[in-house]
């Protein structure tokens, strides 16, 4: 089967993002100009986002290696929006960067393309290439300020551990292939005998690799260091795009492939989810660095999300969709505030909690944004986070997974403590030390506008979630498998 015009239409967002990457590369080769590069990147991402409307006309459709269904469109939209936010934040952050700043957007576009491929893949080959294309530019993005020791450390740490995870992924794929002789997910699904130990081992190894990308608990050790060391926009990208794409493909695997539905793996997923929720929240308690705290918080949130993987029928897709939207909007806003405060680039990011002491008295609106995101991460009503958490708890209760529901409740209770600690810090009397601050006109710059918009979106989704839920429901209904 070769590609037809309809297939090309279905792949339009991917083609547009790749074309933008090429355009940015040629632009850099011709003449370096930061603002123009950002503009080209933003236009390309917006065009890709608009092209989703066209793609929607032809869904669901299967190309030889990729599947374009509701789930793909959902993930692609989230990835593109996150990439846009990172681009805008990157513009403010890298404006006065001493080295060349333009490559960052090239890497960002490549990585976004990888995320889109991963979310749409229905074949182990595209799964592998998508995951690599997602991770490879991220090494460069994390180590972008490479003369900064922490940034370089983050890049190398992610590179080496990620390579180990990839080895697990390939070994798992080889085992699955040896049992079925097929590489496409549908073929894998049909080729299985019951209780095949090799297939189980293969599925487990793939779970290890994807769990690493999602920083699920036994594989979470890299997350805080990498988040702390990476430059603000890169950490934002890692916390949003990389996690969306990896989660979507894991959801696809669990829903489609019988190797992932055996009793053993289900029980493993339950244990991992419980451990992720509890360990993530407990380790966040003692953090004095906001980026590390957000890293642990993001670990805990994916523990909650894994409930949707464990249940994996009924409302699972809708729940995962709603939770992902609320998580991504919130986490983009939270990392956005850190990035805006650390902009323009001048050494390590302002991420220690004492940098935020008394922020309210200097930057009331920025403080309001951070407060809203913390409330949303804690799952307080009238913020987006509450809707997501409500869905997860409802799903757990409906499937009568009492251990998981208990884990969510205990985790949320622990989480409330450290989210509130951050908020209290913001409103304390201003300390004498004042090292880093946002530029005075941050509110009218692109990065500031994005952060404010995201905070408003968090509130809006919390108060009036109906359109979002309706959208996710329609997309979940048109997904294959």
């Amino acid at each position, binding site marked *: 089967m070769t590609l037809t015009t309809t297939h090309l239409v279905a792949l339009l967002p991917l083609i547009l993002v*790749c074309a933008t990457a090429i355009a940015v590369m040629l632009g850099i080769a011709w003449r370096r100009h930061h603002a123009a590069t950002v503009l080209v990147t933003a236009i390309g991402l917006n065009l890709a986002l608009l092209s989703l409307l066209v793609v929607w006309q032809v869904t669901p459709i299967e190309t030889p290696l990729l599947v374009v269904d509701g789930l793909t469109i959902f993930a692609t939209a989230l990835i593109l929006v996150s990439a846009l936010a990172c681009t805008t934040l990157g513009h403010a952050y890298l404006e006065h960067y001493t080295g060349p700043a333009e490559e960052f957007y*090239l890497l960002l576009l490549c990585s976004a393309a990888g995320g889109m*491929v991963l979310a749409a893949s229905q074949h182990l080959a595209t799964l592998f*290439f998508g995951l690599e*294309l997602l991770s490879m530019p991220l090494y460069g993005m994390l180590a972008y300020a490479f003369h900064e020791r922490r940034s370089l450390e983050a890049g190398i740490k992610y590179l080496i551990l990620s390579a180990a995870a990839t080895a697990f992924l390939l070994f798992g794929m080889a085992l699955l292939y040896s049992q079925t002789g097929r590489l496409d997910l549908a073929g894998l699904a049909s080729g299985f005998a019951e209780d095949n130990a090799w297939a189980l081992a293969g599925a487990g190894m793939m779970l290890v690799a994807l769990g690493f990308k999602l920083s699920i608990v036994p594989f979470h050790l890299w997350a805080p260091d990498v988040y702390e060391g990476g430059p603000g926009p890169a950490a934002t990208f890692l916390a949003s795009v990389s996690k969306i794409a990896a989660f979507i493909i894991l959801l696809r695997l669990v829903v489609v492939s019988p190797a992932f539905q055996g009793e053993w793996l289900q029980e493993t997923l339950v244990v991992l989810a419980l451990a992720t929720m509890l360990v993530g929240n407990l380790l966040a308690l003692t953090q004095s660095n906001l980026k590390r705290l957000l890293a642990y918080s993001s670990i805990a949130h994916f523990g909650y999300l894994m409930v949707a993987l464990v249940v994996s029928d009924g409302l699972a897709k809708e729940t995962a969709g709603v939770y992902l939207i609320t998580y991504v909007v919130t986490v983009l806003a939270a990392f956005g505030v850190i990035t805006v405060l650390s902009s323009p680039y001048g050494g390590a990011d302002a991420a220690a909690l004492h940098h935020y002491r008394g922020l309210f008295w200097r930057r009331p609106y920025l403080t309001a944004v951070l407060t809203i995101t913390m409330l949303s991460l804690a799952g307080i009503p009238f913020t987006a986070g509450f809707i997501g958490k409500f869905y997860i708890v409802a799903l757990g209760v409906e499937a009568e997974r009492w251990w998981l529901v208990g884990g969510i409740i205990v985790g949320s209770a622990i989480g409330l403590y450290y989210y509130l600690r951050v908020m209290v810090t913001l409103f304390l009397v201003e300390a004498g030390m004042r090292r880093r601050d946002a*530029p005075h006109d941050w509110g009218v710059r692109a990065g500031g506008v994005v952060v404010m918009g995201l905070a408003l979106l968090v509130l809006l989704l919390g108060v009036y979630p109906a359109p979002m839920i309706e959208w996710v429901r329609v997309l979940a209904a048109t997904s294959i498998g």
Partner: protein
Amino acid sequence: MEVAFYLSGLVAVLATLGVITNTNPVHALLYLVVSLIAVALVFFSLGAPFAAALEVIVYAGAIMVLFVFVVMMLNLGEAVVAQERAWLKPRTWLGPAVLAAVLLLTLIAALWRGDIGLVISGETLTAKAVGTTLFGPWLLIVELAAMLLLAALVTASHVGRLAAPDKPPMHQETGARKEVR
């Protein structure tokens, strides 16, 4: 052919063990060469001569030679000659040499029996078959690999460059603007 398959698989495993247990980078690289050639032989015995040839030419040939050269160039210094002499001890090259000899014997035995088309199972994968797959249904993968290489290249070139010395770091308190680049 099954003997060839298992023997070269064993050699690959042993050589890879040699790679990760060796403390000297050059010795480790020698083992890696053997390991890659063994994998090529595995491909060959499975009926994929094209993949086997590529493995030898690209990995064991170009990439490994590059590795060995770079590592050796990095070692330039006072002790190079003494180092070279130390490397020529049999203890160093005996391991890779024995493993390579096993591979050679396997290859000769396979050739001796004459039936080169004999594979474990399935049909032989020719270069033509690989080509039609790559530029037919797998076209997307080729394009993605191109993007992947682009990203890797840009990452390497960015991280590998020296910090621009002509641009002074930004003033931390005032955030003073520099001229637009």
